[in-house]
């Protein structure tokens, strides 16, 4: 199997996992669900890091580095913003009485 074909297998099976896990989420927590999926969709940071770190030599700044920097920064806003706000919301649900 080609890597792309393996990827398609992984993709389709993951959709099934997602389907079952997400239907188990209680409707009261749908907002934190969106916030946390926001954070984890920022896993594109992996690609962004590979771009930003592509060239050898610290500190040099070319087109690839500029693109990589912005991609890492945007994804990180999501990671930190998403997780922190999810934590804030869930803490509100926790403090019962």
């Amino acid at each position, binding site marked *: 199997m080609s890597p792309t074909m393996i990827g398609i297998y992984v*993709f389709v099976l993951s959709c099934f996992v997602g389907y079952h896990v997400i239907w188990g989420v209680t409707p009261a927590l749908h907002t934190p669900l969106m916030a946390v999926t*926001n954070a984890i969709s920022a896993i*594109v940071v992996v690609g962004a890091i590979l771009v930003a770190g592509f060239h050898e030599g610290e500190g040099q700044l070319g087109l690839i580095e500029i693109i990589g920097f912005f991609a890492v920064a945007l994804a990180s806003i999501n990671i930190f913003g998403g997780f922190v706000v999810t934590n804030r919301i869930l803490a509100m649900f926790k403090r019962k009485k």
Partner: protein
Amino acid sequence: MGINQEVFALVYLAATVLFIFGLKGLASPKTALRGNLFAMIGMFIAVVATVMNPEVRNYTWIAAGLAVGALIGTTVALKIQMTAMPQLVAALHSFVGLSAVLVALGTYFAHQDAGHLNTTLMVELAIGSFIGAITFTGSLIAFGKLQGLLGSNPVVFKGQHFLNLLMAVVMLGFGAWFVIGDSLAGFLIMTFMALILGFTLIIPIGGADMPVVVSMLNSYSGWAAAATGFTLGNNLLITTGALVGSSGAILSYIMCKAMNRGFISVILGGFGGDAAAASAVPAGKGVKSASSEDVAFMLENSSKVIIVPGYGMAVSQAQHAIKELYEVLAEKGVQVKFAIHPVAGRMPGHMNVLLAESEIPYDSVFEMDEINSEFSTCDVCFVIGANDVVNPDAKTNKASPLYGMPILDAYKSKQVFVNKRSMKVGYAGVDNALFYYPNTSLVFGDAKAVTEQLVQALRGTGH
């Protein structure tokens, strides 16, 4: 693939499993915080493993990007008001989209440098870029509508859908040019067309359909991540993207079902705003209005009260006043429950978060299916800032645009009080038959001000 790459793959697998446990934790408020922690650990090890990858050869810009993102993200997340959550989520979706576009572009340059371009990769790059671009501008428009920077009315014109279709075809054409001709211009024009398409796809969708739009863009951001995973040959991204994508898709489905609207009809847009106006309410039929003293008196002498919050509660930030009302009534021995319609507010679960913020215990808050049978046994139903979701026309009037939408059966209560700012119609643009029911009285005023008056009146009368 050396031994190192196998180790990285294992770490990524661990991150995947942690993400799945993270989402699973949201099955209950009791396990949710732990779940979030799992997801954070997953993200942490994924980032650390990637930085340690030998393919990463300099750290300056990675460190700078992470620092800037951490600073902005944390600050915004700590400061944002809970009523503004829909906007925040929309803004964050747009960042994932733009980031995916940049990763596709950067990956193209990097592989060009290294001479590793091939057709499969270029197809994947093109797909990653245009999904990301549509997510980016689409989310910006959603953000603008939610934040009130853009009008929330749908923007429709003749031939709109044909134009969108045409643009999509042209976009794919430029994508093909990029893949076949290895043309950077093709890539850039395709991405540019996708940016415009994201814009034109979302502007026809009105404010009331925002819960669907936000969920749909949530889904797109996942698909964008999955597409990026294909370009990098990284299963962690593919899996995570698929999880997020299916999450958003399921939420969109739940929202559509709660509005009795087809998904296609929502994305085609044009619903709500000034266009629709049909109603079965005979002209000239009057409504009764009540003062806050009347309402306070009725509430005090009830044994069971159901409160139905809606977007109006969020707009006037009334949740803390409502918490006080809840407490006063509880002190007087009145049982108070909250009834939440799935599409109340501007995003799934919006009302639950606001009530949780004001420290109302979540076991007093019920979903539509759980509480609908209880309206007939309650003495007073207090509707605060909700409209279409309690409109009995949805059940009885086939001519109503709302017909078929599941509603909260507020009209079955012995007495209904509806708080409204004015007689303006709801987001669906239809009159509400509930206002004209003999057991309904309207309480005019701002949600927060009215609730505060109620609390005062109840406190004042003593036992």
